[in-house]
């Protein structure tokens, strides 16, 4: 699904720090029983965008993390956190190379929607139904889904403003053009 990647890049809405492809795309063949039960769509989901810091164990295997909530001054200073106000901290979601759900269960980055869905239940439901988020592909067949993080920077999920395309011409500006 090269087109899927192309779309991701054209989106350019996501934070700019996602560069490398990560993990294998969770395609339909790899669906777990649990996902089927949850009504996770049986369609192609493009790979999760990756950070250059991934895998976390690259560094955190050597440097045990200070898990106390504080302002980061040495590392990860590029991460601007604008999500759920002051309530959140790295370890609310991250655990090693995995993501940690509220019940302690660890999930891979390719299944990050479980993490997001914990708070954004209605949006999660809409996303599964194809109502939230962008779909491409076939309306009556294989659809290309995107992960939440394909469009939203998880650390500051609000979309960045865009420059709008040119306004239409006013009727009095529409003139005969023989050229």
């Amino acid at each position, binding site marked *: 699904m090269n087109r899927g990647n192309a779309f991701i890049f054209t*989106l350019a*809405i996501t934070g700019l720090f996602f560069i490398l492809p990560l993990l294998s795309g969770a395609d339909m063949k790899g669906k777990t029983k649990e996902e089927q039960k949850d009504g996770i769509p049986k369609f192609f989901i493009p790979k999760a965008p990756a950070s250059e810091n991934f895998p976390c164990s690259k560094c955190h295997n050597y440097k045990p993390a200070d898990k106390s909530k504080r302002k980061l001054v040495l590392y990860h200073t590029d991460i601007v956190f604008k999500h759920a106000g002051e309530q959140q901290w790295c370890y609310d979601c991250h655990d090693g190379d995995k993501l940690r759900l509220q019940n302690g269960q660890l999930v891979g980055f390719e299944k990050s929607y479980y993490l997001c869905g914990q708070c954004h239940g*209605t*949006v999660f439901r*809409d996303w599964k*139904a*194809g*109502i*939230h*988020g*962008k*779909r*491409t*592909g*076939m*309306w*009556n*067949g294989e659809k290309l889904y995107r992960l939440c993080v394909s*469009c939203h920077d998880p650390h500051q999920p*609000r*979309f960045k*403003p*865009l*420059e*709008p*395309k*040119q*306004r*239409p*011409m*006013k009727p009095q500006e*529409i*003139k*005969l*053009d023989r050229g």
Partner: protein
Amino acid sequence: MSKKIRSNPLGIELNRRTFLKGAAAGLAATVVRPAAAGAFNWDSFLQKHFREMNDAEIKKVIGRLEKEAAVEWKKNIHIGTAKAMPGVKFGYGLDLSRCIGCRRCVYACVDENNQSRTPQVHWITVLRFKKGEKWIDLENSEKYYSPKQVPEKDFFYMPVQCQQCENPPCVKACPTQATWKEPDGIVVIDYNWCIGCRYCMAACPYGARRFNWAKPNIPADEINPETHYLGNRPRYKGVVEKCTFCIQRTRAGKYPACVEVCPVGARKFGNLLDPKSEIRYLIENKRVFRLKEDMNTNPKFYYFFATNITQAD
């Protein structure tokens, strides 16, 4: 203009400009100009209505039209005639809580559907409304907004295009049956049958229909060669056109171009007769409304609100 002197049989010397002035004054102008435009041909003049033709006739006509188009647009253009799929009625959803008014859809549509660049033809109009005032106050809406960035703090946006009414006033109005509703619910136009009276434009409550006030112009390298007879094949001067839900794409199973380009995923599309389709889900689970429902046009274009927040908060 050159000052070249022309002599004529009478031996009177006239420069070119005087000569042309004299010629243009009378009926001579009538004869000269359309001859330059050329292009009258009997086959095209006598071409039957699309729905009156049998398959063999359609094939012949398509052959001729493709040849004409190749000459006219300097590019090989394929004109498809795919029929409506059985058991399909198309519906469209647009999430007003998501739309940021960026007009990506407008221009994706122009590219996909071979709309004229000059004079400009847009099938999609994005309207901007002030928040907290009269709801859908069209008279105070703004179509020509042009800020540096969208969304703007105090506004929300609503794109409008053909609503593919189940009870389309334009079809009722057309004196020649040049526009009609297909079995899959798409309202189409036979560009070779339309006489350009624009009665349908008067009838449409959504300002969805566009007229080719002049010969459409599209740079050859920007032409989309994959077309449909009832959809995006290049049009003629003096005929009406409009959104067809990208008939050339959707009858091949693809999403319309505006759905695929929307950066915020506000646009939804699917089969209204399929209970598992996205469009059915949103109609059943979201607050939907249709534009100007008091007109009983019964549009298949649903505006909805997926969330209770808007992007500009």
